[in-house]
């Protein structure tokens, strides 16, 4: 274990630079949080006016009166939760199959799923939109959730996790008379909690912040999620800064809180995304 190193000039400079950047990076978020607590009409760009003077929580009510921000929040919550749970369930099942079961076509299926990772959603927005329109799923929760459930990265992460479960454990349960479902549920899943958590948290954050597909598939204001509604809100409220900041805070605080609590899982999720090679 390396101890804290001694303080050389180089190290001092390192400290200074690192902390300057840290403050620069944090500042916009901090500015946003504080601005949301100012009375409407405060010139938010004039920092002296932002950090002194009166503060109020009223904006959170006001913002709800101007736009269905709370409806958007609810939509974001429903969609993100559905995507998260759906993804965990579907990918852990599919990954189990690819990892622990022997069947005809296994190699090919895995190849196709891996190939699917090369398809960016931006390349399929047109046919996806057409398909959803034909299925009458535009402006619906299902329409928002379904495309996200198709993402291959979760399958690959879970497969990697299952691969690392020693076959002996599975065989032991087989001797106990376990069928495939029981092997999955009772042996594999409990051993992959951390992977599932990582996939889950990471998926939730991506779903919460997803912009492109909700932007294209939802035109009804009631069905919008936060990332789609907020630019609308800003565009319609060019008269002042505070309320748009409030809306942004409403959209961000859940993600920030989840991040602070589940830092490890989010970073693990990213790390796993990287190790897909």
């Amino acid at each position: 274990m390396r101890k804290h190193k001694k303080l050389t000039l180089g190290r001092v400079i390192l400290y200074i630079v690192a902390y300057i950047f840290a403050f620069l990076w944090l500042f916009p978020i901090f500015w946003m949080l504080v601005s949301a607590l100012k009375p409407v009409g405060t010139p938010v760009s004039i920092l002296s006016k932002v950090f002194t003077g009166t503060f109020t929580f009223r904006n959170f009510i006001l913002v709800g009166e101007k736009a269905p921000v709370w409806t958007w929040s609810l939509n974001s919550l429903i969609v993100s939760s559905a995507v998260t749970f759906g993804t965990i369930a579907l990918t852990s099942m599919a990954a189990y199959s690819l990892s622990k079961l022997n069947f005809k076509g296994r190699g090919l299926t895995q190849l196709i799923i891996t190939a699917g990772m090369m398809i960016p959603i931006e390349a399929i927005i047109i046919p996806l939109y057409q398909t959803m329109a034909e299925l009458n799923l535009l402006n619906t929760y299902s329409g928002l959730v379904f495309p996200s459930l198709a993402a291959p990265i979760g399958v690959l992460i879970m497969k990697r996790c299952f691969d690392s479960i020693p076959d002996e454990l599975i065989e032991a349960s087989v001797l106990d008379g376990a069928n495939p479902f029981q092997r999955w549920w009772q042996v594999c899943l409990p051993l992959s909690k951390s992977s599932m958590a990582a996939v889950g948290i990471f998926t939730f954050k991506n779903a919460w912040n997803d912009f492109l597909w909700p932007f294209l598939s939802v035109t009804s204001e009631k069905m919008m999620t936060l990332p789609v509604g907020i630019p609308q809100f800003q565009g319609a409220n060019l008269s002042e800064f505070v309320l748009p900041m409030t809306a942004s805070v409403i959209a961000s605080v859940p993600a920030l809180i989840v991040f602070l609590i589940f830092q490890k899982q989010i970073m693990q999720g990213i790390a796993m995304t990287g190790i897909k090679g």
Partner: protein
Amino acid sequence: MHFNKDLLEEIGMLEADGTVKIERGEEGFFKFFEEVKKRAPEGVMPISGTSQYGLPMYLWYTLLTQYGGDILDETGTKATLDTPENKKALSIMMRMVENDIWPKNQKNGAEIFTAQKAVATINGVWALPIFESAEGLNFISIPFPQFTDTDSVYADSHSLVFPKNDNISDEERKAAMEFAVWLTNNSAKWGKAGHIPSKPSVAQSDEYQSLLYRKDYAPSAEYAKFYPQSTSIAGFTELIQRELAAMIAGEQDVDKTASNLQTEFQKLLDAKNK
């Protein structure tokens, strides 16, 4: 157009009866606002108005039609944008921008106005509720100034559309139409959001007339000019907004803008009319 009453008074350009008087015509307009620019306090601009998206487009079309131009010919297949009328409209806009009467690259004209950093603002009727709720803002609204003998101002409207649907019953159809009629007859309430009712009798009604400010600009509905009907309008609005934003930012001159508009719009029209 909306004016900050207090600022006008401060610089001595408010009429005795509390209104504002701008001479008709291009020179009248610029004379007035050059004077405003001279007298305005530090940090206050003569006219505020968002320099991208819809606002430049409304201004532009207003000017274009005042000068007798339009975007299409009668057949609806030929773009008419590389014309003297269009160049006139564009150059008036540039004159406003280059003379700092309408400083360029504004992102939030309404906010600048409510922050009392502009003497006047160009904005649509929908801005009214915002201005009304801004604390300390005393303002007056007037119909947009006229530059020629032809009265015109840009307008668009909310239209109720009945999609072609053979699957609905006659009753449903009738109910939809009844709703449309009811909405039109009761649109005085919509006036609260600033809009002008489409039915003249409703516009004349006491309920609408009693709303402050609205009756000051409602007469402009008489000479309001809509875009011609064409399936290419949606694409056109993206095009014109983009070109105007580029021009106002100083990236291209009037002639280039006009010729870009002509070429690109013609392309859109040709694609639709193949």
